[in-house]
């Protein structure tokens, strides 16, 4: 028993990722945790998206299942699992079966290298960012296969649109990423890195997030990536692959039940994946905000309390709404449930105040809250922007973002060269 505790403690105190330490067991534990966290995030995102969209359109959104519709995603999941799984009789069986698997695999595999903290990643690869871009670009294969195997017109058009769109925006995206990677090479040795953890550490060492680097070049590169990543994930306003008004549901029109829910899961985890690339490259990954302006021990302490306070704030919202629940006996179960949910959130908040815990997990908190900001932006775009026409989309990708990306890359390289040779010889 002592040895087990010692083993766990030695790992919790380790300053390496499980991959770097070569520890298979902890790598598995991390994979499980990431998988569970992602599934919870997708469920939460499902509820939040419907709720936020509804409030943007002055509606209430889901209100029936659970207090304020909190259990709606679970009800949806059960419905999808119980639904009959239909395969069109003229469909290409094997390809039809493989397509959702490939999409889900591509969307989840990239999380191996996502750095939630200096030690909180499954592994750190020498080619981290390249791996993420490569594997996430495989998901377009799944989409194309789904559209073709359905043997139906709308899915095929949706798949063709989607592949054309993803291949074109990948170029602008790649140029933006390269200009951020160039910035990592501004150190004494003059060598950059592609490793996700290395990129964040470079921002830490330079004392500057890359979004503010060489103002406004970093900002423009970030903007290019932010537009391209919406197009890459086929989300509004670039959701032409699944434009309801024209193509019913695009490439997954013929899918139902569990297979459809796999596409849904993959779409949302791909959104989280590209958001984490943006956070890692430009927004300082797991680093807390205002590291220069508000530095010093007092501010460090204040920022280490933020995770706990956030959870306590959520708990307070739950308790406030518990008090506001209708007093009718039929609502008793819901009221108790909401109070229990609030209590759990409050307990997590209190645990996060323990200095040892907060030191270990606050990087995860900052990373996730930055990603959450992006997820809110996704919902915001969907609520406000009208859908682009396909030729406008292509024009945007090839005639606006691509030249902009090239220009930013050349300017960044030029300034970096000047800085390395003339200002700091």
């Amino acid at each position: 028993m002592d040895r087990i505790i010692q083993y766990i403690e030695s790992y919790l105190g380790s300053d390496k990722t499980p991959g770097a330490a070569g520890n298979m067991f902890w790598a598995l534990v991390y994979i499980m945790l990431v998988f569970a966290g992602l599934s919870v995030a997708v469920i939460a995102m499902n509820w939040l998206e419907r709720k936020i969209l509804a409030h943007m359109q002055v509606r209430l959104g889901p209100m029936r299942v659970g207090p304020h519709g909190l259990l709606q995603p679970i009800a949806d999941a059960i419905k999808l699992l119980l639904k009959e799984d239909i395969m069109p009789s003229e469909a290409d069986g094997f390809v039809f079966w493989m397509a959702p698997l490939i999409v889900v695999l591509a969307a989840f595999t990239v999380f191996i290298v996502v750095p939630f903290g200096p030690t909180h990643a499954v592994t750190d690869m020498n080619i981290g960012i390249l791996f993420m871009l490569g594997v996430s670009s495989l998901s377009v294969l799944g989409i194309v296969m789904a559209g073709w195997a359905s043997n139906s017109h709308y899915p095929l058009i949706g798949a063709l649109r989607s592949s054309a769109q993803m291949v074109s925006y990948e170029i602008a995206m790649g140029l933006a990423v390269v200009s951020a990677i160039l910035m990592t090479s501004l150190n004494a040795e003059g060598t950059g890195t592609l490793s996700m953890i290395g990129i964040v550490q470079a921002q830490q060492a330079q004392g500057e997030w890359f979004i503010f680097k060489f103002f406004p070049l970093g900002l423009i590169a970030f903007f290019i990536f932010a537009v391209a990543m919406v197009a890459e994930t086929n989300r509004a306003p670039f959701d032409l692959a699944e434009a309801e008004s024209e193509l019913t549901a695009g490439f997954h029109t013929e899918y139902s039940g569990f297979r459809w829910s796999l596409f849904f899961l993959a779409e949302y985890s791909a959104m989280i994946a590209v958001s984490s690339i943006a956070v890692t490259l430009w927004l300082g990954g797991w680093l807390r905000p205002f590291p220069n302006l508000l530095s010093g021990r007092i501010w460090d302490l204040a920022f280490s309390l933020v995770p706990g306070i956030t959870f306590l704030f959520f708990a307070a919202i739950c308790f406030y709404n518990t008090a506001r629940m209708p007093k009718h006996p039929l609502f008793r179960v819901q009221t108790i449930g909401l109070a229990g949910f609030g209590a759990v959130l409050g307990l997590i908040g209190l645990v996060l105040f323990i200095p040892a815990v907060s030191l270990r997990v606050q990087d995860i908190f900052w990373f996730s809250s930055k990603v959450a900001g992006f997820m809110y932006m996704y919902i915001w775009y969907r609520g406000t922007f009208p859908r682009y026409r396909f030729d406008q989309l292509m024009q945007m990708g090839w005639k606006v973002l691509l030249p902009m990306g090239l220009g930013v890359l050349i300017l960044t390289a030029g300034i970096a060269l000047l800085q390395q040779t003339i200002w700091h010889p």
Partner: protein
Amino acid sequence: MAPVATPFFFYLLAGIMLIGGILVITRKNAVHSALALIVTLLAQASIYLMLYAPFVAGVQIILYAGGIMVLFLFVIMLVSIERSMKERQFNSQWVVGIIAATALGGLFIAVFTKGKNIFPDHVLSVVEDNNTQEVATLLYGQYMFAFEIASLLLLVAIIGAVVMAKKRI
């Protein structure tokens, strides 16, 4: 860390590659062939990874599996599959094919039996930790000229394709 370059992985990946390659030329449905080709390319990327060349593996996945094969599929899907399925698959160059195959096979056997002196007698030092940086230093240092010539060739090919495809520019 324990080495991943074990014979087991090599035979596994080589087997997957061979099966994929055979499927590419035997499937009647062009889309199935393309998918088998993707499997082959991915297995090849894994072999690069096994040989401690992660950068090449990443580029292989991005360029071939993610980029070129998507364009392949894009074109194949616009072709009517029903008609091409009924067409008889023909091959009128089997004499040349057999000659080429025996020549290549003979070369392989010759190298395998007599080629002890061709290969270096020790394993080269692997630079796994900064593989990308090493590739960059070589590519933009020692092989700068060849690299630039290759990119110029590609640029000419792109412009040529645009000129041929577009009647009026």
